[in-house]
């Protein structure tokens, strides 16, 4: 249902929303937000964009299958979880770089973990929605 109006609007909204999602991701540790909700926003943005551009043909507007984000994200999160093992700490122990940064706060494994979450959420949600859409939405 690629109406002109929707398509044009979506073209301008998508990048905005993706930015917003990254913002939400990064500052989750300090304020409501985080990888999960950030990822959701990102995927919603892409879905909206998909709707505006024939959702049944994602391959035409995404360079890669979103499913590949799942292992990417899972690797990041797993890495964050496992890293402490090399320092003889239990899994999931937070490791921090010194220093503090705006929006993000301290940088540490927690952030890496959250980024992983973000990717997995995007990958999974998009895989679900696009699979369904490809099957159920024609035109």
């Amino acid at each position, binding site marked *: 249902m690629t109406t002109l109006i929707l398509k044009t609007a979506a073209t301008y909204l998508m990048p905005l929303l993706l930015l917003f999602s990254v913002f939400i991701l990064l500052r989750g540790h300090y304020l*409501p937000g985080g990888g*999960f909700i950030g990822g959701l926003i990102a995927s919603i943005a892409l879905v909206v964009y998909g709707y505006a551009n024939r959702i049944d043909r994602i391959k035409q507007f995404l360079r890669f299958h979103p499913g590949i984000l799942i292992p990417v994200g899972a690797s990041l999160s797993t890495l964050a979880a496992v890293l402490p093992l090399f320092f003889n700490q239990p899994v999931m122990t937070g490791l921090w770089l010194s220093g503090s940064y705006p929006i993000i706060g301290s940088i540490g494994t927690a952030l890496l973990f959250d980024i992983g979450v973000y990717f997995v959420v995007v990958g999974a949600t998009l895989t679900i929605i696009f699979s369904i859409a490809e099957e159920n939405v024609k035109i």
Partner: protein
Amino acid sequence: METVLAILTGFMYAAGIYLILRRSLVKLIVGLIILGNGSNLLIFLLGGITRGNPPVIGENESMLTGIYADPLPQALILTAIVISFGLQAFAMVLLQREYVQGGVEDFDSIKEEEEAL
């Protein structure tokens, strides 16, 4: 408030279960969603409810003091929400396949093929 919410929770459980007990494939999903919401609300309620004090440490503070909402149930619910989303999404697609591929109109048309043997 707690009493009202407890009743609401019970109502959500009841409605969810009632819908699950229907014949319709779609109602099953609706029921599951309501049930999931019900259990989330239950966790929330049992963690104790607090108005206006989210568990976020203030800008210039390093510790949360005074009254604040119990963050743990919230985290649990967040996890539960996401999980039930995954499960529900899967269940929905399954139902749809069931209908499209198997021509199943409602639950009563799915019976085990025990008798056929």
